[in-house]
């Protein structure tokens, strides 16, 4: 587990200050999408080895949602951005 996260608002912080909310790479299905699509979105989780993007909530700091890109095997952290910024980049 990556033990130090560089929050874009708070600086370098220990992982104890965060709550991890899971995969940030998948988009939410449209309301009328099929049951299978929603079932996948809500329940089906991959357990990847390697580079992943996750939502981390800085509960004990700025209370912003962040997107952390890290390697689940080596614990290396590649990038940390505010989730609002991440969503903005995705729509561009």
């Amino acid at each position, binding site marked *: 587990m990556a033990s130090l996260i560089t929050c874009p*608002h708070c600086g370098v*912080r220990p992982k104890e*200050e965060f709550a991890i909310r899971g995969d940030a790479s998948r988009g939410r299905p449209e309301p009328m999408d099929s049951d299978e699509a929603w079932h996948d979105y809500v329940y089906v989780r991959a357990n990847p080895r390697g580079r992943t993007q996750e939502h981390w909530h800085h509960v004990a700091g*700025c209370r912003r949602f962040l997107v952390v890109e890290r390697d689940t095997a080596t614990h290396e952290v590649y990038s940390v951005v505010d989730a609002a910024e991440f969503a903005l980049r995705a729509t561009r």
Partner: protein
Amino acid sequence: MVRDYNNRHALEQKLRSAPVAPAADHLMVGHWRTMALVLARADREEAVRRAIASQPDLSMRFAAPGEWLVVSEVEAPSGLVRRLEELCDGGAYVVDQSDGRVVFRITGPNVRSILAKGIGLDLHPATFTLGGSANVLCGHVPVNLARTDEDTFELIVPRSYAESLFDDLMRMGLAFDLTAAFSD
């Protein structure tokens, strides 16, 4: 029916005994500290920050982007809220926190060694500079930490955590003979 409630400080039980002579490292708790949370509207963050920063008697503590805890040594709670609302000119939500939070002021030559036992933040004078502030964990308790003087820090905690944090701080300061008392 109108009820009167006795205003009782969260640490009344802990600090009731006669004040001890302060040691080199000392923890002070004020009976009355006025503070309010200011949350700026989207796109008004910079204007709000500048308006409050222009007031020398108001101390801004960083809580989140566009959000600050504003502490005053002179204002009464209602006065502070009114003044902040005027200053921000509709650009921010202001919520009084004076009764909801407790301010601990810890000072002394060993203050960083004491705080380092519970806080995972680099407190070196060159890194955590004078006037700096941050939301952090002290043990498991969320606090707002601010450096208010050379070797003085203030921790602001939700009222219901105050006794727990007090016990933690006294244990963290045991090796340095940390003392504690009400400051007023």
